[in-house]
């Protein structure tokens, strides 16, 4: 295709000089938005996988003897329930470690009423009716409370979905803005080269011959801008990933996508250049139709 391109436009055009940079900035924003949406998707997947395969039961009874009695009854019921692979009581030290981020380091035996916490692991293929199980637990041990994380998970999922939609909106707006910018750039280019285009037209150049000269030019603009924007975004993502890993927070770490999941980034400059070229082609062809 490019072998047949008759390039009659001058190599440099000052009016188009900024176009690759603008496309680059747009691609930068687009890449970050897409990566953000992907991270949230990955996070939801990882959190869901962890939370749907287990739940916890608290036995909240002030009297120690009664609590031990109810804990034993709860454990017996849980282990007899089909689909439950394991149920174990967390040691006080483990519970204190879980509370440490909120309450700070406290010595064991401090006068803090801590409930007994039972961690329940489901077998991978099992589905357990947690509502029915909760009723049976309360009947067996009135101090038992089942927490299957549904309320918390529901809120997180809702928030994540809204953020994902917002990011998708940002991507759509960035793509539309890029198209508009290319159209403006192309029109400015057409105005600059109007006389050259008219001469080519009068010499018998077909529309496709003239528009190919713009195709090649705008493909190069899109590719240059795309590579710049994606490289910049890749650098920022790398920095953020390192920061998130160093923070060591499970919630944030769950959102870090695998490196292989980011390979699509490599396709963005190509997509940007093709989008830029097609936008330029349509704009030029429409303008040429106004000539006889």
């Amino acid at each position: 295709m490019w072998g047949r391109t008759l390039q009659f436009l001058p190599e440099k055009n000052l009016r188009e000089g900024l176009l690759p940079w603008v496309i680059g900035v747009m691609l930068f924003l687009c890449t970050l938005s897409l990566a953000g949406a992907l991270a949230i998707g990955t996070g939801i997947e990882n959190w869901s996988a962890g939370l749907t395969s287990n739940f916890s039961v608290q036995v909240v009874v002030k009297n120690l003897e009664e609590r031990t009695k109810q804990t034993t009854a709860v454990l017996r019921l849980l282990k007899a329930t089909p689909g439950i692979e394991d149920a174990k009581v967390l040691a006080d030290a483990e519970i204190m470690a879980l509370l440490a981020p909120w309450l700070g380091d406290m010595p064991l035996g401090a006068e803090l009423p801590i409930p007994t916490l039972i961690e329940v692991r489901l077998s991978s293929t099992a589905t357990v009716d947690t509502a029915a199980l909760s009723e049976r637990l309360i009947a067996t041990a009135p101090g038992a409370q089942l927490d299957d994380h549904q309320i918390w998970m529901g809120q997180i999922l809702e928030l994540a979905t809204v953020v994902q939609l917002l990011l998708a909106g940002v991507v759509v707006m960035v793509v539309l803005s890029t198209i508009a910018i290319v159209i403006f750039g192309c029109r400015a280019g057409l105005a600059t080269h109007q006389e050259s285009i008219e001469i080519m037209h009068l010499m018998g150049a077909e529309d496709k011959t003239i528009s190919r000269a713009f195709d090649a030019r705008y493909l190069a603009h899109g590719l240059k801008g795309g590579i710049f924007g994606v490289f910049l975004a890749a650098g920022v993502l790398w920095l953020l990933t390192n920061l998130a890993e160093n923070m060591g927070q499970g919630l944030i770490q769950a959102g870090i996508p695998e490196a292989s999941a980011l390979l699509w980034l490599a396709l963005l400059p190509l997509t940007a250049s093709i989008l830029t070229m097609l936008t330029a082609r349509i704009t030029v062809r429409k303008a040429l139709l106004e000539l006889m």
Partner: protein
Amino acid sequence: MISFENVGMRYGMGNEILTDIGFSLERKSFHFLVGPSGAGKTTLLKLLYLAHRPSRGLINFFGKDLATLERAALPRIRRRIGVVFQDFRLFDHLTAFENVALPLRLQGAKKAQVADHVEELLSWVGLEDRMHARPATLSGGEKQRVAIARAIINKPDLLVADEPTGNVDAEMSKRLMHLFVALNKEGTTTIVATHDETLVRSVGAPILRLEKGQISLEPGGKPIDPGA
């Protein structure tokens, strides 16, 4: 070869610039187009080199009615028409050689063939030493010779020149006119629009006179300049 019948032309909703224009250009003929400024010469030439369609009337190009021709068919006809402008309209970033080569490259001619033809033609117009010069470094006369070479490199059936001597001195005007006459003798139908009555008399070709949008044909006289 080319005929106009009752052709009228107006831009938008304005007055008619050309009214009931009728004439024909026979194969290998040479005509001058003369008339005062604002008479419609440039508009008529634009119709001749297919930059515009007429508002009314019939125009026949090489046996084809313009009204029935689809847009996609026009480039082929345009390639049979060479155009020379008063302001040259060369591509400033291309050399004389590259400017002249454009019409051949448009037709997909091979590189060697392009080189042979362009070098030969630039030598013929006396620019063998200026082939790789860019227009900015050429004189007005040299630019116009490059423009003429570009217009005729395809061996067009019709050559349209719009005030080709308007930006060159008297001596160069005579030399350019000799080129047009020589081309016509080689078989190219030629029409030259000019204000220069001396040049017109020097060639002695028939004159299409355009006044107030209407055209009349005056027969040619005896050339004054024996070289023409």
